[in-house]
């Protein structure tokens, strides 16, 4: 019996299994589309009320897109781990023998896909509400930026979401832990998006160095997360 038993899934298979599972749950539960997206859009509208000037709005549109993304990310992370915690699935994951790197990558991947959807909607909202301009080259830069930035956010989110998953007061602990860490993402993604939108006459070419920062961030936290997630899950 025991020789049969050790054929548990590889890192890649586990990652795919978890990502597909999380995305399927989201497709059925529709928490992102029915709750998080409307929240993000309301935030965008509220910014417009607070800033109350077309010129200012146009100038700060890239920052607002990413700020709204950041706040919404916190909800998506919380949801991602509420799914595991509500019926003891976390204990089953711990006893499954599935490699923790696979669990990390799977959850991060599902998170990243959801955040990408969120960013696309918010960029469209910025174009409509704040009259941001988007050229063809700008579009390429923006897509690449969105992939790198959401990758970084998803890695950090999964890491700290897993850390605070079982903790009391996790609703307030999560923002305290996550927000300082993702400051480079906010800075990098905002600058890159400014170039993509051509805000203040910044050329598209100036945005690419920021992409380097975002990519380094995503890779660093992706690798670290895959290594460290096991000891966070290992309660």
């Amino acid at each position: 019996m025991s020789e049969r038993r050790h054929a548990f899934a590889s890192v890649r298979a586990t990652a795919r299994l978890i990502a597909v599972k999380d995305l399927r749950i989201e497709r059925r539960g529709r928490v992102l589309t029915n709750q998080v997206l409307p929240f993000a859009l309301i935030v965008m509208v509220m910014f417009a009320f607070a800033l109350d000037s077309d010129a200012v709005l146009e100038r700060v549109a890239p920052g607002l897109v990413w700020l709204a993304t950041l706040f919404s990310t916190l909800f998506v992370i919380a949801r991602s781990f509420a799914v595991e915690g509500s019926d003891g699935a976390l204990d089953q994951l711990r006893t499954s023998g599935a490699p923790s790197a696979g669990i990390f990558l799977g959850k991060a991947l599902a998170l990243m896909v959801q955040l990408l959807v969120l960013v696309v909607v918010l960029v469209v909202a910025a174009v409509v509400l704040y009259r941001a301009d988007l050229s063809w080259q700008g579009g390429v830069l923006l897509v690449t930026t969105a992939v790198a930035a959401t990758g970084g956010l998803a890695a950090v989110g999964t890491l700290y979401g897993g850390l605070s998953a079982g903790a009391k007061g996790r609703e307030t602990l999560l923002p305290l832990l996550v927000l300082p860490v993702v400051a480079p993402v906010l800075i990098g993604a905002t600058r890159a998006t400014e170039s993509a939108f051509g805000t203040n006459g910044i050329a598209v070419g100036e945005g690419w160095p920021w992409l380097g920062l975002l990519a380094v961030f995503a890779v660093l936290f992706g690798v670290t997360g895959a290594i460290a997630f096991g000891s966070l899950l290992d309660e």
Partner: protein
Amino acid sequence: MTPTSERNVTGTSFTRGLGIVTVLGIGLLIVLGLFVSPADVNQGESVRIMYAHVPGAWLAYLAFIVTGVSSAAYLWNRTRSLTWDRIAGASAEVGVLFMGISLVTGSLWGRITWGTYWTWDARLTTTAFLFVTYVGYLAVRGLGGSHHQRARRSAVLALLAVLEIPLVHFSVRLWNTLHQEASVAGRGTDVTMDGLMLFSLFLGVIVFTLMYVWLVLHRQRALALQDMVEDFGLDAALAARRAEEVV
């Protein structure tokens, strides 16, 4: 009973000596910093804040380095010991204290010299992020669970912070160089230090480092005591638990 009236719980003759030297040093530092040392040509009297501010900031960074190193020592199997975890925790607590202090003294100094409490200079911004990060670290330490659970969790977090800080610093610096307004942090900072001023600053760093060692030793021992108290409570609780079946 003697233990209840005991005053010096976490002290040894070494820490007592260290404490006396530190207190004397602080006294000397205050006298030198506030009265004896001259005003600076550029900064005027505000340079006196530096004697408290610079050592404080130095200390906070030292403390966070110690936290990182002892967290790694805890995670490394061959040196796994709760002592490392307690040193990490004690050091982070002291670090947060000194970082908070130097943020306040720094902005008081900035108000005099630059006319503003805060500027988005890379060093300042990184410091603020460092402060918030370690406040979060202390919050995670307070989450509860078993001692090793606490240790493992917070050690991973401390190492993540080590990863985070250069990234934050680098991105803020990049952000700042592209910023439209010229950085205010460059102005008014040129100090032509004469011998006494340099000595005061040097003394400050030494005295604060001694104070750091003193604080971490005591805090670390206090943490060890608290852990031991919990374990002693366990013996009584075990006896009570076993007695349940009689009822």
